[in-house]
């Protein structure tokens, strides 16, 4: 949700490595989240299933959930000893996350050759993971309880699809941490954001749900057409002279990195890693400034002040 922004700044910028850092904050929201581990015969097919189930999962407003790959899981750490990928799914409430899991696992993981799907989040609160997919078995599905986990075996055309019965869900998740990267060169800003997303990928328990982790269509709240959001004209370089712009004459491009995490601390760690990466690699790529998206501080429970996350 954080691409909706009004961008209230506190005071003047701080400068590091020649990059100005606005004295402002990213405004993030409490969310619910679950995690699953998708395995397959090879890392390639585990990743394929994970990417597919994460598709159309950029913004909870339009997609119903924000989804992404947290990290790859080594065979030694998966229940079936095969390579896996952990996917995190964020939504407004546990029951909405459950509905998204049902559809995404049913359409994207069950269908992927050789796949299996397991709980990927230890939590006292649990939601159904197999509801939906297991009934594809048309009565031939069987369950096997091992320890505290129950696994369903669903006959499919390449053998059996195995899915764990329940997945953990957390209501302590945070969605909408963000960084705005501003520069004089569109390609340079994009390369900088790519490297920042790669740095964030090393932080556990977070995802960057937008395409490649990067948003180019930051938005403001409201629209003259009644839509809930519309383009963030204050950060559109081609409108600089026509609106109350937040950009300088040299600014040609603004890209945003949105971060969702299982905890507020995880989002903070990702903000720190992303900001450091931008400061390290941005100066050579014509990045001139960093900012963050917020709503004035009145909507989101979590405020990430950029100055608190500088290296």
């Amino acid at each position, binding site marked *: 949700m954080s691409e909706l922004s009004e961008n209230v700044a506190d005071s003047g910028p701080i400068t590091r490595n020649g990059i100005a850092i606005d004295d402002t904050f990213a405004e993030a929201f409490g969310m619910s989240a679950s995690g699953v581990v998708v395995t397959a015969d090879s890392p390639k097919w585990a990743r394929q299933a994970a990417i597919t189930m994460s598709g159309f999962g950029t913004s909870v407003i339009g997609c119903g959930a924000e989804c992404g790959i947290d990290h790859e899981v080594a065979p030694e750490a998966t229940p079936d000893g095969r390579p896996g990928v952990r996917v995190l799914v964020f939504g407004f409430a546990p029951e909405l996350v459950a509905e998204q899991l049902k559809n995404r696992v049913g359409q994207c993981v069950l269908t992927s050759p050789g796949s299996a799907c397991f709980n990927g989040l230890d939590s006292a609160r649990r939601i159904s993971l197999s509801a939906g997919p297991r009934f594809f078995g048309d009565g031939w599905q069987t*369950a096997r309880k091992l320890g505290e986990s129950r696994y369903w075996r669903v006959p499919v055309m390449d053998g*059996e699809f195995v899915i764990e019965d329940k997945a953990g869900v957390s209501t302590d998740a945070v969605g909408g941490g963000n960084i705005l990267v501003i520069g004089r060169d569109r390609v340079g800003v994009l390369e900088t954001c790519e490297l920042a997303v790669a740095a964030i990928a090393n932080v556990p328990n977070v995802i960057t749900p937008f395409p490649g982790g990067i948003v180019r269509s930051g938005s403001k709240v409201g629209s003259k057409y009644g839509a809930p959001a519309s383009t963030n004209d204050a950060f559109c370089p081609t409108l600089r002279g026509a609106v109350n712009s937040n950009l300088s004459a040299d600014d040609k491009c603004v890209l945003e990195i949105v971060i969702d995490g299982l905890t507020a601390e995880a989002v903070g760690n990702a903000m720190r890693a992303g900001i450091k990466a931008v400061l390290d690699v941005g100066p050579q790529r014509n990045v001139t400034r960093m900012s963050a998206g917020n709503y004035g501080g009145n909507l989101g429970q979590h405020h990430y002040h950029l100055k608190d996350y500088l290296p």
Partner: protein
Amino acid sequence: MSALKLKLRSAPPVRLDLSRLVPGRLAGLSSAEIEKLVVSGGPQGLTVGDCFEVSGAPGEDLIFEGGSDRFDYVGAEHAGGKIIVEGDVGAYAGRRMKAGHLEINGDAGVCLASNLRGGIVSVGGSAGEHIGLPRPGEKDGMAGGAVIVHGDTGDYPGERMRRGTLIVKGRLGKLAGARMMGGTIWAEQGLSAGAGIQMRRGTLIGPRIDEPLATFVDCGTHDLLILKIMAVHWRNTLGDVAPPAFSPPRRLMGDMASLGKGEILLTEG
């Protein structure tokens, strides 16, 4: 780690009900109080002190120094810690046990692990008939946990089993998994005649079967992912006694005279 030791004075003259002698029920009792616990009915009314020399203090571990096939209900309702029996036990050892470990370094009598709920029961010798059998009025046989028998078993092992694992290193008795509803029976030496009769769900695994029932249907040889998951789980929970890895098994489904969702997996094809 403290341990309470009960040294058998002499072979018991009558059957003993040792269900009260589990760590959870002995916690907080003094040696004198433990010695006064009654362990047999009838006119003799034998106490712990009559049958055992008591030493040590109640804690997580309980050790019987010496055993007898008249030791009934050893480890019944056991809910944590470890019970070791240096000898044989009688009927219903580990009945309705919930957690912890029961190690029997001898033979076990009938109805071992009746209606077991959890934990691990390990028998160094052989076990009698009806492993896991529920008592009258109970719905399920074994309903969780794991039983490892290093020797042979009597007939009807795993009768009406719903969950859990039974591993038999020696010869498995006839009619294994009768009326089974879930769980796994693994017979390292092979399955005997009548295995899986009237089973609804569940899995029987062995290298071969003596006389397969006509009501099981051949579904071919398959590499089943659930076996990898089970292998990982068993390795983590059972350690060295976990069954060895094997090649993709031949799958027989049945009992088609019942629900027909059970399976016999034959690892030698």
